[in-house]
């Protein structure tokens, strides 16, 4: 079956512009996660959705970042007034349920470059 898909694969924007990054999780997966991977760094947790529960936003670096998940499926990560330090690969992952042993499947990521 199809894996996690993300779009666009690459996004170049100018400082101060808003961007939207999209994630389509694996069908039937109730948990969805966003991570950020900066050059030469590990993956940094941003936000987590589980079913209809309130999302865990504890990893969002500033109030310029927000995310929503519509209909329990597709998710959009929005970055307002982008800054150069926002340049990174943004990765989305999904899992069947939110459990420690449940594998998180990652998408290929969106590479964001802020000029």
């Amino acid at each position, binding site marked *: 079956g199809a894996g*996690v898909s993300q779009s666009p694969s690459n996004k170049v924007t100018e400082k101060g512009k808003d961007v939207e990054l999209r994630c389509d999780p694996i069908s039937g997966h109730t948990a969805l*996660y966003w*991570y950020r991977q900066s050059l*030469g*760094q*590990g*993956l*940094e*947790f941003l936000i*987590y959705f*589980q079913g209809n529960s309130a999302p*865990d936003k504890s*990893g969002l670096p500033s109030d310029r970042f927000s995310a929503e998940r519509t209909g329990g499926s597709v998710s959009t990560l929005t970055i307002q007034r982008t800054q150069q330090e926002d340049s990174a690969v943004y*990765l989305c*992952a999904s899992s069947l349920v*939110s459990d*420690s*042993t449940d*594998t*998180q*499947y*990652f*998408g*290929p*990521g969106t590479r964001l470059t802020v000029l």
Partner: protein
Amino acid sequence: QQQVKQSPQSLIVQKGGIPIINCAYENTAFDYFPWYQQFPGKGPALLIAIRPDVSEKKEGRFTISFNKSAKQFSLHIMDSQPGDSATYFCAAYIPGKLIFGQGTELSVKP
């Protein structure tokens, strides 16, 4: 306290060698420790994982060793191959998220 520290940052071995990647953590609430493999331009993919009540787990050429008292765990790759060249991340699970190490870039020379 939610950090996972990974070393080395990069590693070069000859084909057939046994690269070892080490990770350490502080938070005893972590209850699951996966390793992810990432190739350039791709998302990370689960390689192998272990629970803290187990000291070792083998899957094919990949072995995790886990030392609960020292709060350390490591990945060994037996008979490494050029196709194993990738970036490896250790991680630790706390409800709702994975906390990742900084990654190790492995290069296996033919």
